[in-house]
């Protein structure tokens, strides 16, 4: 009988089956059903953003209310969020698009978000340098092999490698195209077979953890 948890299981089974069939048979009526499903998906995806916003703000409002550790950072986040939303709406009303180059939203994007995110990512270079120095040790044969390969690839992937030896970039290409790819393919096949298995289990209602 269709009651309780059986309803979402039945929906999952039906929709999953339709999507699989329509992917491989993109003709009427399956093609049309797929297009309608995709429209629904886009609408739902839009709403998930609202859900994300609700979750993010809820978390930070709670932090501020309870004066948890670093609650002042949460105030900055909330203030930033409100400022960006107002700027986006105002830019759309004023210029037709929030991303119009005259809008304050674009100003925030270009002069706050771009430098902040770029800086965050750039910091990786400093941490990688420190980690490489402290942790990348040839403790055994496997680690030594990895270390030597890494050094060859690091040299071969930059122009100075060509200057050291014309064979270095070619050897690097071989490493990338043969041993690296063999390992990657093995991992990839494992991942996708696993994903396939989980998908089938979800469609058939064996895997139900998403309901809890």
């Amino acid at each position: 009988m269709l009651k309780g948890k059986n309803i979402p299981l039945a929906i999952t089974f039906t929709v999953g089956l339709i999507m699989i069939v329509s992917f491989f048979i993109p003709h009427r009526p399956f093609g049309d059903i797929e297009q309608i499903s995709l429209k629904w998906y886009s609408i739902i995806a839009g709403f998930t953003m609202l859900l994300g916003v609700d979750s993010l703000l809820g978390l930070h409002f709670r932090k501020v209310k309870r004066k948890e550790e670093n609650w002042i950072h949460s105030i900055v986040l909330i203030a930033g969020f409100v400022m960006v939303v107002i700027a986006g709406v105002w830019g759309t009303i004023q210029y037709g698009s929030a991303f119009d180059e005259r809008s304050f939203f674009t100003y925030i994007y270009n002069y706050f978000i771009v430098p902040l995110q770029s800086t965050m990512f750039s910091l990786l270079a400093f941490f990688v340098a420190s980690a490489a120095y402290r942790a990348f040790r040839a403790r055994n044969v496997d680690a030594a092999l990895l270390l030597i390969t890494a050094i060859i690839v690091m040299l071969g992937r930059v122009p100075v490698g060509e200057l050291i030896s014309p064979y270095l970039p070619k050897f690097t290409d071989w490493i990338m195209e043969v041993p690296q790819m063999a390992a990657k393919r093995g991992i990839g096949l494992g991942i996708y077979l696993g994903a396939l298995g989980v998908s089938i289990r979800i469609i058939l209602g064996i895997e139900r953890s998403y309901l809890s």
Partner: protein
Amino acid sequence: MKFVNFINNIDKRWIYLLVALVVIIPFVFPVGCPMRITPPVQSMYNYIEDSIPENGVLLVGIDYDPSTMAELHPMAKALTYHAFYNNLRVLFVTMYPQGSGMGQDIIDKTLTQWNSANPENQKELGRDITLLAYVPGVSAVMLKMGENIPATFNEDAYGNKLENLPVMDGIKTYNNLNYMVELAGSSVVLSWLMYANGRYKMKMGIGTTAVSAAEYYSYLQSGQSNGLLGGLKGAAEYEKLITENHGYAGRKDASVGMDAQSSAHIFFILLIVLGNIVFFIKKYKEGK
């Protein structure tokens, strides 16, 4: 042992300072190391150069945000310039909300620089290039594009109806696009490969960050992608190709970073070697 202890206990802030110097100095005093064009970059260049007819359409996926723009922005710029040299139309598309800002930045800068350098061949927003509006859904959007691109987006990112834009003339599905280059530092590349290439047979090339490039060699070998730009070096190689073949004289954003990247890699290798020497000396002394 004194030296070993000193090296072992060195304050990491000294390493940070050295990294900064190693990156900054080559920008001030460039060396200009020679650069070989790798086959995946050449292959992408050749396809755009030889296989797309005039007024053909190049779709560029701007699926990145400012965190990876240092590597991917120069690729987008070089590709746009290459398309302009060959009088191709360029459509930017993004599956990331932040990609809109990236795409518009490239369009604004490229149009300004191109038009001031080429007054006899002016390019125009909406006629030669545009950015499709961001629509959430990723794989759903890619699949919808296979059936009807204008109905999927309705507008460009500037709020113009797609049906009124000359750049969209004759474009309905992937079949009306000549080539796509997906620029991303994330796994969204796989979605494009699965849906646009796998299902709709869209001819594709990939541009990605150096750290992600290893991931996509298998797609290159299988023929699902016919070109790969890997990191800043991939972009620098592309800049070199358009400079040699089309006389590109603008700022080479990726090429200027090549010396810094070379010196940083050498510095990292020295650090690793030094760290290991210290490790083995210490191990030897402790064993004694």
